[in-house]
């Protein structure tokens, strides 16, 4: 039933071991948190899973259907190929198409599923109009889920921060993923917004039949919705477990608070 199976992946940047022998198996429908102190290598893991970086060792297997074992290796594929296979992501430092409208941001993500080609687009064949209408409608539906459909004609850069984060998730969903990687989705949100986002993430997981892996620093969110948590420090997994196990794990506490700090003092 595994959707993703990363087998001891490592990456070295000019002598620096950013991530070492990282293992991760995601079951279908799981919501897993990836946490760790700054610089632990969390985003690097995302970048390897999405093809931005090629791991220097190990293998990443993906299984779109989520049934049986993951078998297809995605190492060496380009990011767009991996997205087309069914892994979508958001970015830590929001990467929206800033000067385009909210609607276009989402419609662009539908592109690889569009059935007409450039020539048919130039000639404006009936298929062009049909497809345009259909993706516009689908994009609006997605925006509605995130409650930003009222702003579809605004430029993405003019949205408030929290809504930009939501738009990024909506855009990722438009690629019709099976596995969604969220990189600090709640960064910059206030507690109320974070709370709403938590529900939204659970909701889209059920609605779109997703498996979700998220990086987050906000512990209320991570502890609140993740079923399983993986803790990274200095590029190595130091703990895996349920939220309650993780919050008591001495190695995790040490990684976050440092050596010799008395907890509860």
């Amino acid at each position, binding site marked *: 039933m595994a959707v993703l199976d990363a087998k001891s992946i490592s990456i070295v940047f000019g002598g620096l071991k950013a991530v070492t022998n990282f293992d991760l198996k995601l079951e279908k429908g799981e919501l897993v948190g990836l946490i760790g102190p700054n610089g632990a290598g969390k985003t690097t893991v995302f970048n390897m899973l*999405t093809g*931005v970086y090629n791991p220097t060792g190990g293998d990443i297997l993906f299984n779109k259907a989520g049934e049986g074992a993951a078998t297809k290796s995605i190492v060496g594929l*380009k*990011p*767009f190929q991996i*997205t*087309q296979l069914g892994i*979508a*992501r958001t*970015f830590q430092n929001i*990467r*929206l*198409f*800033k*000067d*385009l*409208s909210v*609607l*276009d941001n989402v*419609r*662009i*993500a*539908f*592109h*690889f599923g*569009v059935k*007409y*080609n*450039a020539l048919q*687009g*130039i*000639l*404006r064949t009936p298929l*062009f*109009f049909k*497809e*345009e*209408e259909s*993706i*516009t409608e689908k994009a609006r539906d997605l925006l509605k889920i995130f409650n930003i459909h009222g702003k*579809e*004609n605004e430029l993405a850069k003019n949205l408030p921060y929290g809504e930009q984060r939501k738009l990024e998730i909506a*855009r*990722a969903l*438009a*690629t019709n993923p099976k596995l969604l990687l969220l990189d600090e989705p709640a960064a910059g949100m206030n507690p109320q917004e974070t709370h709403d986002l938590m529900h939204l993430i659970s909701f889209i997981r059920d609605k779109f039949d997703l498996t979700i892996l998220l990086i987050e620093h906000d512990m209320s969110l991570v502890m609140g919705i993740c079923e399983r948590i993986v803790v990274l420090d200095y590029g190595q997994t130091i703990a895996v477990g349920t939220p309650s196990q993780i919050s008591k794990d001495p190695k995790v506490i040490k990684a976050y608070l440092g050596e010799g700090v008395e907890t509860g003092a």
Partner: protein
Amino acid sequence: MKKNRFFNAITLTVTSASLYILLALLIFTGIIDEYNGQLLTLAGIYVIVSLSLNLITGFTGQLALGHAGFMAVGAYSTAIIIMRLNVPMIPAVFAGGLITAIFGLLIGIPTLRLRGDYLAITTLGFGEIIRVIMVNLEGLTGGAAGLKGVPPFSDSGDFILDAVIKFSWVYGFVIFTLVVVSNLIKSSPGRAIISIREDEIASNSMGINVPYYKMFSFTMSAFLAGIGGGLYAIYFGYLNPQMFGFLNSVNFVVIVVLGGMGSITGTILAGIGFTYIQEWLRIFKDFRLVIFGLALISVMLFWPKGLMGTNEISVVKLVRKYFFKNKNSDNSSSGSPASGESQSEGVR
């Protein structure tokens, strides 16, 4: 939705046709004299090449500095096809465009992996290499002495009629280019192209084959620039490698920047404006290029977004506003809008 679609198509057709009839009549009756008619025709060619450059630079975000080289390929191949193979003009122009597209493809493969400034310099390099090749392929191109005797659009012997025909062909090709570029940009592949300009990494992560679309845009740009070059060859009837130097490439960059990178209507307005300004500056003789350079710097310093930024003037909206006075039933979602040539009153 469907009603809008036909309204748009009809409005654009009627606008471009009536503008054509108006201008052709003005040239025919001599109200636009021969000199201005020629200039307007030349402006059309500049608009075609500038639109092609805007596709790669304004919409795809890849600065290309060698479009004069593409124009040269189009010009020489069209001229040679007409003169050596006796192919009629129209197929020859398209063939010239295709040959240029193949050149674009070959040049694009190594260079489009590069970013920003590097791409600019390499395209510049290729532009210069093309020029050097034109000088050295004497048997085919006439070398540095040039290629004489490209047959004109028409040689009826009647100056006025010739001017009208010349103008008509170029106008037709401007419309062709306009339709290609603006329909492309407003389709899903077009949005994919624009997303590359906005953020290459995000675009890639949204499942868009970034290298493919860069290539596509570059090749298409070369194709259209080649068509512009073919028309240029027929327009002047004489070719010489000096006509396609680095400064000419810069001219097109200036037009695109002046009009607004990523604005089709901006390019049209700036292309026409530039052609005229360049003519007026001739009275300054040698000072012309100094003024030209100073203008370029001033635009960048004080007016960096150009005339239009990435905005467009929508003919359809203007027509609705002034002729039908109805409350726009909304079309804004399918992105903005097509463009037309004469609506300068809408510029703000």
